[in-house]
């Protein structure tokens, strides 16, 4: 039962992964520790509908690759986000569709069941539309870096581990992505951006 899985021990991820090579059930504790955060990240990027597939595939790939885990890394979060990023890349149509939904009508597509969602539907603010417009135009590589930092709260070093790129590349991709976001948010219609409410 899952109730058994949601009581994580205090062990390092690396210990869990090493033990899981002998006893695969140990991997369940790793899942219990990271699944909710990974799942939420995936829903934010792709919408609700494909998230379960993507998370299941992410953990299946992780499970199969557990023997190759770098034991120098105490937390497995960057590793898991890196795998998730690769799986997300295969779903770019879902991601584009979600951002375009904001562009079309500014309707939030949260993961609630339809009835609840219609109750809570709000027209997205202009800044959300403009941000969605910027995100959809970023290259996939730049978007991965930006969202791993902004949504997954990874550090530059962790993003570098997750994506297998040098830290300098993380910085340059992040800078490029932020520049595009800034220009979209400060774009053609400054009044609609909602700067007043969003500035300190």
């Amino acid at each position: 039962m899952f109730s058994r899985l949601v009581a994580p021990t205090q062990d390092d991820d690396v210990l869990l992964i090493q033990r899981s090579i002998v006893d695969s059930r140990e991997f369940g504790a790793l899942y219990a520790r990271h699944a909710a955060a990974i799942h939420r990240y995936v829903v934010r990027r792709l919408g609700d509908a494909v998230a379960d597939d993507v998370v299941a595939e992410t953990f299946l790939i992780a499970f199969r690759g557990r023997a190759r885990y770098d034991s120098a890394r105490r937390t497995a979060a960057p590793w898991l986000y890196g795998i998730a990023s690769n799986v997300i890349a295969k779903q770019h149509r879902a991601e584009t569709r979600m951002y375009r939904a904001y562009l079309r009508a500014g309707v939030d597509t949260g993961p609630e069941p339809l009835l609840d969602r219609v109750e809570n539907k709000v027209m997205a603010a202009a800044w959300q539309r403009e941000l969605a417009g910027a995100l959809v135009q970023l290259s996939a590589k730049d978007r991965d870096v930006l969202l791993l930092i902004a949504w997954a709260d990874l550090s530059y070093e962790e993003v570098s581990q997750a994506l297998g790129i040098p830290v300098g590349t993380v910085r340059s991709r992040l800078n490029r992505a932020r520049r595009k976001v800034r220009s979209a948010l400060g774009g053609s219609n400054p009044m609609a951006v909602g700067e007043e409410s969003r500035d300190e």
Partner: protein
Amino acid sequence: MNDLRAVREFRAEVPEAGPDRLAAIHDRWTASADATTSGRSRTPAATPRIGSWLGRVPRLGWGVAATGALAAVLGVAVVFAPGDADPGPQGTVAAPAITTVSSTQFLLKMANTVATRPADHSRPDQWIYVKQLIPHTDGAGKVEYRPAESWWRVDGKQTARLGDSGAVEIAPAGLAGDDRSPAQWQRYLASLPTDPQALLDRVRQDAGKSDEKAFSYLLALLREATFASPATNAALFRALVLIPDIQLADDVVDVAGRHGVGISRVRADGTRQEQILNGTSGAYLGQRTVVEDAARVNATRPEPAPPVHNGEVLHAEACLATTVVNKPGQR
């Protein structure tokens, strides 16, 4: 302005998935992993999700109350249904009366009843009107059941709701994700086998192997069953008979005050999931989640949540109407 902060706030309202849903995902990838280690190769099954326009999905379970963020988004909370007695001095109320009269008899009778009932039909450009009573809480945690009216274009291209001002608000983007439209639901229902055992097998494949998941899924399908063929509709009831430990409460009052028959099953988390049906027609009236084993529920409850008592109603809702209409605003 700070661009990074704007990105952080974008889609920040997305809640964490509840334990039921995460457990279902866990089951899926471990099933694939097991298959691989035993020499067979399988990719994770693309399980159809229950995210329908009628009724809250069973995967929320009591997590509706447990996940604060989600509860805030939905405007729901831990509730006492008006039909239930106030907690006594010991803070407990009587659990719903469960009769030992066979649930099988009732389910088979309903199967025979719906087997002669023609299915509702709708065109892609028509709308499904749904009126429900759903719980709202004020800041003090007091619960009030309010009507919520919504319209779903059958092809999913638009949705609409009755706004607070009384005006019908149309959301032009409709089902902007990959969620199922009413038409997709109808196609899914039409694709289901009408042999009860084959249907249950399919449900276990789509929803998860456990009796608990199969039961939840069948209840959700029954909420949409007015659009199913009579044969499918009857098969849904007959498939339920094949699931063990289903209990029957022969007189239950839903949050709209209507009497019906409760079909329920206790979940592993200690809650009882109950669907209330019209005892004559089998029509869906409402549903609720009731605490059956408070110790078990409290053991898995997030810290800030107050402990629950046996018999406490964690969630309840009622469906007042569902009709096919030609445009939003019609009832």
